[in-house]
């Protein structure tokens, strides 16, 4: 699961590729915690190249949400494939994260 990090328009973008399951969650969690420690308050998870996620992966997103909510920050998710989107809906997480079709729209809104 390569995680590409970049900053666009003052927003930190994490481009997560491949699979985000139990074996890969720690790497993403470390990347997120590193950004939060650096004082980043606006995060976008770009999932356009993500083909798998489980509840461990979702847990990292919730962790980011909880931390940033306290710091008046925001978390957005973009590019989620249709077949993965249902998991956000059944878990209710589609209601806590702002979700956008692509990175461009996410960056415009944040």
């Amino acid at each position: 699961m390569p995680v590409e990090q970049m900053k666009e328009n003052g927003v930190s973008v994490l481009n997560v590729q491949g699979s985000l399951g139990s074996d890969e969650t720690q790497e993403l969690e470390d990347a997120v915690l590193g950004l939060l420690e650096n004082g980043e308050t606006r995060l976008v998870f770009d999932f356009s190249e993500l083909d798998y996620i489980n509840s461990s992966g979702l847990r990292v997103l919730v962790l980011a949400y909880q931390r940033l909510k306290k710091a008046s920050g925001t978390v957005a998710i973009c590019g989620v494939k249709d077949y993965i989107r249902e998991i956000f809906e059944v878990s209710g997480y589609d209601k806590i994260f702002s979700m956008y079709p692509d990175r461009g729209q996410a960056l415009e809104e944040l």
Partner: protein
Amino acid sequence: MTYHSTTFRMTNKQKCFQIFRPQVEEFGQRYGLSQKQVFNLTLVIDELITNILSYGYTDLEEHFIEVTLGIDGDRLIIEIRDDAEPFNILEAPEPELDLPVEERVRPVGGMGVHIVKKLMNCIEYRREDGRNVLRLEKDINDECPCGC
């Protein structure tokens, strides 16, 4: 209807995801399942096996986990047999979805089981000869095959 199935085994000492994911993909390809159906089957098995590995064993011994994938007309069937501690997912507490995440006692706890229950239509659990036997069914057309 003809029932087709495939069974594979793994142990708690192996990297289970890397064993069952290709098996589910091959099963999906053989029976013409959609990308979403393959993803959902993989996710359901992943969540259940992760639970078994995380909470099921009180010793350090090697234990077998057996998974059967079946297709019977429009019904997809998963059966998992393991000798872990008794665990009936039907009795597992639901996540507190009605509360905002920050007010939940367990913000993400129980989400894996919740996802499994949402993605599958019919779930049966029994304890048999010291093993958990969990059978889950899903109608390909999203209709509940057992009328539950």
